[in-house]
């Protein structure tokens, strides 16, 4: 009876426009080497899921995200550097796919913003201070 209920529960789940192939082997399995897994995880948290509403591939249940995770783990296990994998993805999808914006001609303002805000703030704050009288 339990098995029947289990089967019913599985069937009753809605049918999505999804393939029914299982996830790729490394999509939901960690690499055996913890250092490599940590590097892979760090990279996955900063790669944007292409079919989601603003999530990284590490946090998404979408199939394509799973395949991207599998690809990342596979390449890290093969010895590739995380930055090379990121660059490969950016070459195919543009900067949109990485949550770590590059530093280039169009994004220098973004990276300079913190320094600029501080500088402007200091200038404004200067007017609040009086010279120290001994």
């Amino acid at each position: 009876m339990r098995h029947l209920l289990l089967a019913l529960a599985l069937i009753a789940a809605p049918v999505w426009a999804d393939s029914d192939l299982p996830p790729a082997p490394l999509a939901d399995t960690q690499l055996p080497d913890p250092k490599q897994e940590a590097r892979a995880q760090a990279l996955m948290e900063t790669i944007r899921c292409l079919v989601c509403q603003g999530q990284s591939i590490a946090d998404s249940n979408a199939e394509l995200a799973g395949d991207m995770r599998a690809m990342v783990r596979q390449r890290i296990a093969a010895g590739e550097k995380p930055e090379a994998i990121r660059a490969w993805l950016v070459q195919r999808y543009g900067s949109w796919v990485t949550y770590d914006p590059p530093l280039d001609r169009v994004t220098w303002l973004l990276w300079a913003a913190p320094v600029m805000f501080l500088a402007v703030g200091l200038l404004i704050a200067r007017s609040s201070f009086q010279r120290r009288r001994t």
Partner: protein
Amino acid sequence: MIAEAGLAALWLGAALCLLQLVAAILAVRGEAQLAGIVRPVAVAQAALTALAFSLLIWLFVKVDLSVALVFENDHSEKPFLYRFAATWGNHEGSMLMWVAILGAAGAAVALFERKLEERTLLATLGGQAVVGLGFYAFLLFASNPFARLFPAPPEGRGLNPLLQDPGLAFHPPTLYLGYVGLSVAFSFAIGALVTRDVGPAFARAMRPWVLGAWIFLTLGITAGSYWAYYELGWGGWWFWDPVENASLMPWLAATALLHSVTVLATRDGLRAWTLMLAVIAFSMSMVGTFLVRSGILTSVHAFAVDPRRGMFLLVLLFLYIGGALALFGARVGAVREGARFDPVSREAGLVANNLLLSAILGIVLVGTLYPLILEAATGTKLSVGPPYFNAAAGPLALILVTIMAAGPLLRWRRDNLVPLAKRVAPAAGLALIMLIVVKLAAPSIHILSLLGLALAAGLALASVAPLWQRNLRRTPLFIWGMVLAHLGMAVSLAGMACDSSFTVEKLVAARVGETVTVGPYSVTFDAVDPTFGANWQALQATLLARRGDSDMLTLSPQARTYWAPPTETSETAIHTALDGQLYTVLGKQAPDGRWQLRLWWKPFVTLIWAGGALIAIGGTLALIGRLWRARRKPQEVWL
């Protein structure tokens, strides 16, 4: 009938709001007779909107399907709490809640504000009315919550299952009380700019309102973070998502405002900063409302997208924020220059605090909107996420923490570096020890987390330092408030650093009967059983967790399927120990019969939200302390 009554109440409220505005304008310009009606009208207006909101709640609880909004968001099989909370789990309902709170805030000012000079108070109520009118118009013309649906369908569409959680009952109302509570500060600033009355009395009057809104905002953000943490199932508590940033920006501005207003109250300085921050805080609330509802930024948290409504809101933004900033530019010069400070003093510390908070606010704003601006300018699509925000705002936040530690130990007016160093030495020493200990224990720790932990320890000691050598029973309540709030910040920071550095994650495909080790726990996968709820069915895993020789714990994560609307969610099972949380998630079953399990051991992660709660408690103590003191010693000018 009830829906029509609700709509009628809204129209009446809008009409009264217009009356409030006209009367306030005329009264400020000299028509003394009208001054008397402004307050009662503000209260009546609030009562009407509260009535409209209550009627909408009634419609949702009774599942009146002849109202379109109820049809789209409600379902008769939902438990009572979620029928109740579904009222604001959608755009129109939450907008009505916004307007109701706006009205209530105005009424509260009308009823309870006694310290403010009469003309400024009238101008403030006028400011409140100006803001109210725009949002009434938005509600009545573009977001009518009471629209009917004929013929009434047999059943509603139901609420998004991710929202069917106690978090929905708590998070939006507290957040809105904070967001919209800041409108009072905004109106105060408008009032002060109109009557050019900015000074210590004004600041003392404004302070409790800012504190009140800030407390709610802190609670709302903390609750939202915890809700997302246990609901979304990926173990994260902050993603620098545009909607999250939209709630953080008003908080940053409000925190800066809170500190700035104290300087204005005690030393009559930072007049322009205080006014500017008051305008910015509520402006950020309004920008946040716009971002969430217009659809221009992609987010998991975004409401239903409607560019037409977005356009309406944008026009309101231009009117209100543009108007307020234009008023600021025109009038701030006439606000007499405030006092100046010594570079080493409590005031200087507060100026630094303002500066850093504003810079962080700027960074969050730029980071959130840069992709949009870049696309507008060049067509390039960009994503800005945690790597940017952590790298840009993180160091500034750590500097802020250092100043937070030294600040309360600085004397007002003028201090000297050597005595200050002596006062700060114990905290600095503790921070240094913590730095060395942590670095030795975890050599590969990230530099930001390492500094975070060290500074958290230092801040914790420094925040209780003001109590040192004081008669504790005669220490004013607001000092306790400051101590607790800063301590809460230290606790929260420690939690954040621990979570980002010491979390252990295990992803396994397990067969029933297998055991997995995660952190100090060994978790045995005991069974998977089907189970049912009011409006869902699920597969529930039974996990038996044991730590060393302690008792066996049972955790039951579920993979749930709701049928209205059809959605799959995952319900995490979390065990909270004194030193961390065991967080478990059940995934899908692979064809070979093994089940996907995700297990985390997160040491000290609860400190993040415990710290947030402490901050809110500290704020509450400060608020009570100030109100009580004002009642007992109305003539007192100091602090």
